[in-house]
């Protein structure tokens, strides 16, 4: 009897210590997120009844799943952090379960006006040394800042009058004023670059509409053009300002708005009328369906190929020269 009891006790202890779990379907693990997904359908019958039975079942299920997950985690490469006595730390892999991002991926900053110009001209940055030899002080000084190489500008006691300058002008005041102007201009350009980058980043509407008083020059021109054309005769008889150029005829609509003069080319008119009669009388349809379909298919294939090629070449091309938007020619004369 004692043997049987001892055997039963040992079995009980063994069960308590066992770490193996039996599952129908293997779990899916994402150790980077400490995640385990169990696809086995849970025992619905047991979970229906409310109360402690359900809790016990849920807890058993959770225990099994956690055991499997911890077993996996313990299988990761681990080391002792902070020397021999430190805690055991496991290296987690990258999370595999893709979760949506919080914000859009950042766009690269658009180049500033100087950067565009430099790229166009091929000007490259030169690495400057941080210290400059100051002849007067006979030591290495900073290029700019506290105790700079050129001497303290506030202590400059001599200001030469340049040739052709007004002898009564205060040179010190002039120098101070010019410095102030330079600083203001730099700050203005910096903010303009920032605003341009911000605008490019948010990708606002193609033609942003600002309230009157805060419109830019282009916007005013565009708005004036639209206002001119929104008359019954599409702006043909609107009075113009004294120096405004006349409307070029090419801007007056597309193909359907172009009208030939009444008594022009008689031969051309005759040929056109005969062609029209011929097309009306012929049995063959003017539009060849098969040719049109083939043309369309070829065009689509060419577009797809171009898009693929553009994607590949876009990655390879660096320092692509940006086109300067032509200001005057295309948009004016509205």
């Amino acid at each position, binding site marked *: 009897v004692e043997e049987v009891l001892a055997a039963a006790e040992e079995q009980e202890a063994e069960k308590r210590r066992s770490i193996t779990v039996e599952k129908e379907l293997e779990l899916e693990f994402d150790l980077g997120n*400490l995640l385990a997904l169990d696809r086995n359908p849970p025992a619905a019958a047991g979970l229906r009844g409310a109360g402690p039975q359900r809790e016990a079942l849920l807890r058993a299920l959770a225990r099994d799943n956690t055991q499997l997950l911890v077993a996996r985690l313990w299988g990761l490469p681990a080391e002792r952090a902070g020397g021999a006595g430190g805690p*055991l730390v496991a*290296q987690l892999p990258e999370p595999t379960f893709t979760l949506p991002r919080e914000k859009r991926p950042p766009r690269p900053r658009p180049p500033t006006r100087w950067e565009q110009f430099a790229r166009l001209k091929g000007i490259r940055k030169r690495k400057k040394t941080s210290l400059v030899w100051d002849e007067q002080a006979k030591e290495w000084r900073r290029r700019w800042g506290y105790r700079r190489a050129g001497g303290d500008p506030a202590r400059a006691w001599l200001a030469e009058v340049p040739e052709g300058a007004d002898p009564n002008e205060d040179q010190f005041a002039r120098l101070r004023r010019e410095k102030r102007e330079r600083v203001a201009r730099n700050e203005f350009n910096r903010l303009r670059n920032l605003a341009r980058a911000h605008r490019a980043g948010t990708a606002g509407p193609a033609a942003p509409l600002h309230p009157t008083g805060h419109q830019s020059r282009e916007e005013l021109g565009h708005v004036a053009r639209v206002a001119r054309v929104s008359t019954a005769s599409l702006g043909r008889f609107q009075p113009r300002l004294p120096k405004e150029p006349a409307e070029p005829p090419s801007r007056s609509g597309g193909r359907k708005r172009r009208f030939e003069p009444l008594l022009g080319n008689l031969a051309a008119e005759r040929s056109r009328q005969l062609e029209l009669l011929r097309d009306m009388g012929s049995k063959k349809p003017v539009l060849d369906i098969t040719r049109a379909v083939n043309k369309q298919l070829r065009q689509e294939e060419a577009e797809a190929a171009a898009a693929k090629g553009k994607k590949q070449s876009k990655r390879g091309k660096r320092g692509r020269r940006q086109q300067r938007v032509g200001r005057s020619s295309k948009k004016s004369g509205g």
Partner: protein
Amino acid sequence: MEALDRVVKPKTKRAKRFLEKREPKLKENTKNAMLIKGGNANITVTEVLKDIYAVKKPFAVLYRKKNITRPFEDQTSLEFFSKKSDCSLFLFGSHNKKRPNNLVIGRMFDYHVLDMIELGVEKFVSLKDVKNSKCPEGTKPMLIFAGDMFEVNEEYRRLKSLLIDFFRGPTVPSIRLAGLECVLHFTAVEGKIYMRSYKVLLKKSGCKIPRIELEEMGPSLDLVMRRTHLASDDLYKLSLKQPKALKPKKKKNISHDVFGTTYGRIHMQKQDLSKLQTRKMKGLKKRPAEKAAEDGGVSPKKSKSA
């Protein structure tokens, strides 16, 4: 409005750091959650929000006042809150006769609502009611999802993704094995979702891997899914897109076999095969007589020309 158009220029370093933390980055910050009470939130719902806040600290904000909004009708106020507090996850609690103990769990993309799922709380056991010891604040919980519904049903799949996003915590490169204390277990069965949190006790076992014993702790919820507002497929795909810079760089000239063998490729320059250093075979060595014959063959030509 021009005030929103204008770029806010930070005047202090602190303001600059604040703005930099909020701008889009390659590797993003941990998502923050905002816990909002609706106009008619009752005690149960408030307790749920407080408990989830305790689990999600410090990556959560609990709004103390009631906000009279309806997430499913009008999302502008949610988006405004998200922009103000830079939170991309939210949990909105409300209660009315038609939808008792209502929780709307959702996430944002680019400060616009991406997904929203409405869940009803049928049974709730709070942190205070369970008298066991709790996990310290800020532990990364282990997440386990049981039930085939989470794979089969599209709405349940989105819910799973939302819950992982919500409870994930910061992404860490390594973790202390003894510190794996908290596990959140979600079971989907018969249209209900049971969420239970347990404290993990590591017991000795025969081998290196410890035996797990679980102790009930923390909030436990019985949820039922009500309405959903899921993002369209292309918006969801857009939000999943990772920037290319994050992709691990592919090492060139290394290829792997099906069997796990790694192959490498070496590119050599052109070799002059006549000058190759081969094994010396003594028998094939040129005897002096042969060498003289070769030279002799060359010289008569020379003498002729001379």
